[in-house]
């Protein structure tokens, strides 16, 4: 492998890992947000029913 090969490998791995981590983090964020909204909305329905 030539010098540019090593440079490309390093930049490629860093970009791929960061993008993968970002995608996984966004998925965790969306899952937590959806779960929280679901719990909050069911809480609002419960309190409304009791009222």
């Amino acid at each position, binding site marked *: 492998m030539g010098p540019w090969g*090593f440079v490309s490998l*390093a*930049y490629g791995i*860093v970009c791929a890992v960061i993008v993968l981590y970002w995608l996984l*983090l966004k998925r*965790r964020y969306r899952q937590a947000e959806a779960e929280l909204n679901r*719990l*909050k909305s069911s*809480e609002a329905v419960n309190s409304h029913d009791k009222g």
Partner: protein
Amino acid sequence: MAQSTAAVKKRKGVLGGLALLAIIAGLCWSLLIAPPDGYQGEVQRIMYLHLPSILTAYLSYFLVFIGSGMYLWKREKKDDLLAHAAAELGVLFTALTIVEGSIWGKPTWGVWWTWDARLTLTAILLLIYAGYLMLRSLIDDEQRAASAAAILGIIGFFDIPLIHMSVYWWRTLHQPPSILRPDKKPWENVHPDMLTALAISFVGFLLLYFYLLSLRYRVGEMRQEIKALRLERGV
């Protein structure tokens, strides 16, 4: 409330956009504008990733140190959430630093890995904070897990001065700093375009770091809210 959530999301989006712009500018400057190194040639361009990665990891561990100390002192959950989020990102950036260093080491030293003092201490740093994350998942009692992790988070931080000083204290293969040298100013030793590329890359990494940290912190915060709501209902 909905308005403030939208505003926070917008701020995160702006931060993410700025990070992306700075990273693209850093890539252009590092790969197209900065000249090749006189001794190492083109492979030296890995430095524009390697140095910002490790400095970002150090910043992350500093936040773990602060968050852990504050948690042990005040027992506030937000400090533990910060330490946990920062530890995860610290592990990510340390692992990237080791991979980049390994790829840089092969054409420069002829090996992918050597048990050099700085490399070994950096690998130990990665293991300490990977252990920090494992420890949290192994202890069921949340408060005990947070306290044990906080102690490890503080102890682990003391590896960083050792890593920094290792090139002076031991005969190592890893070169001493080229930019932050006590005997020379950075611009006396390094080409201005190289310094610019490094500065832009570092800004890009910092913006990306704070963007990812804000997302990861919010994930932790939401999980706490979910846990509290479930407890409230006895689910």
